[in-house]
C-alpha cells in the first residue's frame, strides 16, 4: 500500500486555483488560463481574496466558501500565506494540494517548509511542492504549470512519464518532448519534495497503466531506504531512464579508506541505478533518445544488428558506433537472405552488412531489402539509415518504413540527418511510432540501451 495516493492529484474531478488572478502577469492567472485552454472538463474554482469573477468563472473568496468537494487545490500565493491557506484547505476537506509557490527551504526558510509539511500531513492531504511546476497529464487535462502555452508547448498523449525536482529542467524536457512524436503520460515536477517525494512518485508511475516508460531527472532522494524499496521493483515492470545531477566530490575529502575515497555519493547513485536496471543518461538529449526507443520498440531477441543505408559513409559511421558498443554486434545475413537480396538488388549493391542500397535507392528497394531480412534468424534489430537528400528518398520511403514498423516484431530505428525536408519526414515517421535519430551514435546508444534493459529484465535470478 502506498504512503500517498497521487490519483487525486493526477486525475481530479474538481480543482481550486488559489491565488487565481485577473492580472495576466500573475502565476495564478496563467494556471487558470491553462486549465481553460487545455479543455479541463471537471469543476474549476478560482479562489481570490477579492472574490471578483476571473476569466468568466465564479470566483470564491475562500476555499471553504466553495462548499463542494475539491480533489485538488493548486496554491500560487506568496510563501508566508501558504500555511494559513493550507489549514483552510485541510478544514474544508480538500483532498490534495500542489504548492507552486517558492520561498521555502530553497532560500533558507526551512521552518516555514516544515510547517507546511506538518499541516499537509495532519490533514492527510498529499502535497506536491513547494517550489515546483506541479503536474500535467494530457489525458485528464490537468495542467498546473504556470508557463503559458505560447512559450512552452504541451506534448500530445503518449506513454512516457517524466519526473523532476527542478522546474527549469522539467519545463525544458516537456518542451522537447512536445517536439517528439512519442507523447506524454504524466509530468510531475515536485520541487522541494516536502511531503510527496521521489519514492512516492516512482511508485505511482510504476503502477500507472498509462505509463510505459519512466524518465527522471534526479538531484537526490529524500528517503533513501524507501526509494531503494521501490527502485528494486520498478525496472522489472517498466523501463526507467535516469539523469543524475550533482557530480560533486562532497563528503569524500574526509574518507579514510580506499573504498570511501572512490565510492562517493554520485558513484553510489550510479551503482544503485545499474543494480536495479535503470538506464543511465549522460545528458538531457539522452533522456529523449532512450525514451523513444523504449516506448515504441519490442524487446530484441538477441544482439545482432542489420544496417541498411542509402549512403555508404553513414553506413560506416553506424558500423563504427556498433563496433564500440558494449553489447551490440553486426549481424551476418543468412544464406537464404543473401540469395534473395542478390536476386532482387541491382549489381552495384554488395550483399553484406552494412547493406548499402546506393544513393538512388527508392522506397521499393528499401522494402525489398527489409522484407528479405526481417525473418533472418541471424538478425535481431534494424538500423535503417534514410538520407532524404538523395534522389530516391521521398515521402513514400517514410511511409514504407512506417508500414514495416507496424508489421515487425524486431526493433527497428531510423537514422535521418538533415534540415527542413528531413525534419518533416522525421515528424511523419515519429508520430507513427517509428523512432528517428539525427546521428548514428545516438541511434546505436539507444539500441544498446534497449538491449541492456531487456537483458536486465530477463536476467536469471
Amino acid at each position, binding site marked *: 500500500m502506498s504512503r500517498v495516493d497521487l490519483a487525486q492529484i493526477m486525475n481530479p474531478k474538481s480543482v481550486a486555483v488559489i491565488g487565481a488572478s485577473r492580472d495576466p502577469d500573475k502565476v495564478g492567472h496563467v494556471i487558470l488560463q491553462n486549465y481553460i485552454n487545455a479543455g479541463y472538463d471537471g469543476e474549476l474554482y478560482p479562489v481570490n481574496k477579492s472574490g471578483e469573477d476571473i476569466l468568466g468563472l465564479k470566483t470564491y473568496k475562500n476555499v471553504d466558501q466553495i462548499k463542494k468537494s475539491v480533489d485538488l487545490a493548486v496554491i500560487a500565493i506568496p510563501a508566508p500565506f501558504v500555511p494559513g491557506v493550507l489549514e483552510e484547505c485541510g478544514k474544508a476537506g480538500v483532498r490534495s494540494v500542489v504548492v507552486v509557490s517558492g520561498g521555502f527551504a530553497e532560500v533558507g526558510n526551512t521552518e516555514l517548509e516544515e510547517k507546511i509539511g506538518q499541516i499537509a500531513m495532519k490533514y492527510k492531504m498529499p502535497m506536491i511542492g513547494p517550489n515546483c511546476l506541479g503536474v500535467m497529464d494530457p489525458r485528464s487535462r490537468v495542467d498546473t504549470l504556470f508557463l503559458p502555452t505560447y512559450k512552452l508547448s504541451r506534448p500530445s498523449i503518449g506513454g512516457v512519464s517524466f519526473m523532476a525536482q527542478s522546474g527549469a529542467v522539467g519545463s525544458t524536457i516537456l518542451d522537447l518532448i512536445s517536439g517528439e512524436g512519442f507523447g506524454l503520460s504524466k509530468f510531475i515536477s515536485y520541487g522541494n519534495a516536502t511531503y510527496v517525494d521521489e519514492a512516492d512518485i516512482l511508485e505511482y508511475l510504476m503502477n500507472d497503466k498509462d505509463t510505459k516508460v519512466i524518465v527522471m531527472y534526479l538531484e537526490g532522494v529524500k528517503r533513501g531506504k524507501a*526509494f*531503494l524499496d521501490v527502485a528494486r521493483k520498478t525496472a522489472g515492470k517498466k523501463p526507467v531512464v535516469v539523469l543524475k545531477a550533482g557530480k560533486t566530490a562532497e563528503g569524500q575529502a574526509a574518507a579514510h*579508506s*580506499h*573504498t570511501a575515497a*572512490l*565510492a562517493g555519493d554520485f558513484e553510489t547513485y550510479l551503482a544503485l541505478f545499474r543494480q536495479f536496471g535503470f538506464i543511465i543518461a549522460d545528458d538531457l538529449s539522452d533522456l529523449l533518445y532512450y525514451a523513444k526507443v523504449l516506448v515504441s520498440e519490442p524487446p530484441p531477441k538477441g544482439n545482432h544488428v542489420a544496417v541498411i543505408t542509402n549512403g555508404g559513409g553513414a553506413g560506416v559511421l553506424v558500423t563504427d558506433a556498433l563496433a564500440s558498443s558494449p553489447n551490440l554486434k553486426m549481424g551476418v545475413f543468412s544464406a537464404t537472405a543473401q540469395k534473395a537480396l542478390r536476386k532482387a538488388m541491382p549489381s552495384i549493391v554488395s550483399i553484406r552488412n552494412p547493406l548499402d542500397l546506393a544513393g538512388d535507392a527508392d522506397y521499393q528497394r528499401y522494402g525489398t531489402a527489409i522484407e528479405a531480412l526481417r525473418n533472418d534468424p541471424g538478425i535481431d534489430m534494424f538500423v535503417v539509415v534514410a538520407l532524404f537528400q538523395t534522389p530516391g528518398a521521398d515521402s513514400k520511403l517514410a511511409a514504407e518504413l512506417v508500414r514495416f514498423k507496424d508489421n515487425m516484431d524486431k526493433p527497428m530505428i531510423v537514422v535521418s540527418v538533415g534540415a527542413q525536408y528531413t525534419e518533416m519526414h522525421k515528424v511523419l515517421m515519429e508520430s507513427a511510432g517509428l523512432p528517428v535519430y539525427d546521428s548514428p551514435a545516438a541511434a546505436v546508444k539507444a539500441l544498446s540501451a534497449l538491449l541492456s534493459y531487456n537483458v536486465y529484465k530477463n536476467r536469471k535470478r
Partner: protein
Amino acid sequence: MESRYVKTSSDAVSFSDGKPIAMKVLSPKALHKTKAGLVKLDLRGDKEVAAAFGVLKKKAAWLKPYDIVVQKMAHSGVEAIIGGRMDAQFGPVIMLGLGGIYVEAFKDFALRICPITSYDAEQMIEQLRSKDMITYNGKTKRLVVDLLMKVSKFLVANDDVKELDLNPVIMHEHGYDVVDIRILK
C-alpha cells in the same frame, strides 16, 4: 592469512621458521602503511627478519600505541580490493576493484548497494574494464563472487562499520589470501 603479533625479533624469527614472511606496523595513527614505509615484504632468512624488526620498531616509536604483526607471504597472483562504506541514504555499499594501486589510478571499480545477489556480484565483475584479469578462469570468478557475497553479508550484519577495506586480496591458483583488512567504525 596466517598472522601473529610479535613483541621481539626472536618471536618474528621463530614465526618465519625459515620461510619468507611479511612484517608490518599496525597503528591507528598510520592508515597508509605502505606509503609510510611500515610494511616489509618477502623477508627471507633469520638475519633479514631480525633486521626488519629492528627497523620497524624504530620507525614506529612515535606511533604508540602500535603492534608489529608478521604474516606468511601471500602467493603471488591478481590483486583485488574489496571494500564497503556506510552510505547515509542507502545503507551499506560494497566495492570491487582489481589491480592494487591501479584501482585508484584508473577509477576502475564497481559498486552495489547491499545486500547483493550473486547476479549483482557477477555484474560487478562484468562491469570492470579489467575483468579479464580474473575471468580467465571460472574458479577465480566464483571465488570473487563468493567473497563479495560474504562481505555483503558482513556489512549488512555490522551496520556500525563506517568504512571497510580488504586490500589487497590476492587471487592465485590455490584460492585467495586476504592480506590486509582495515575497518573504521
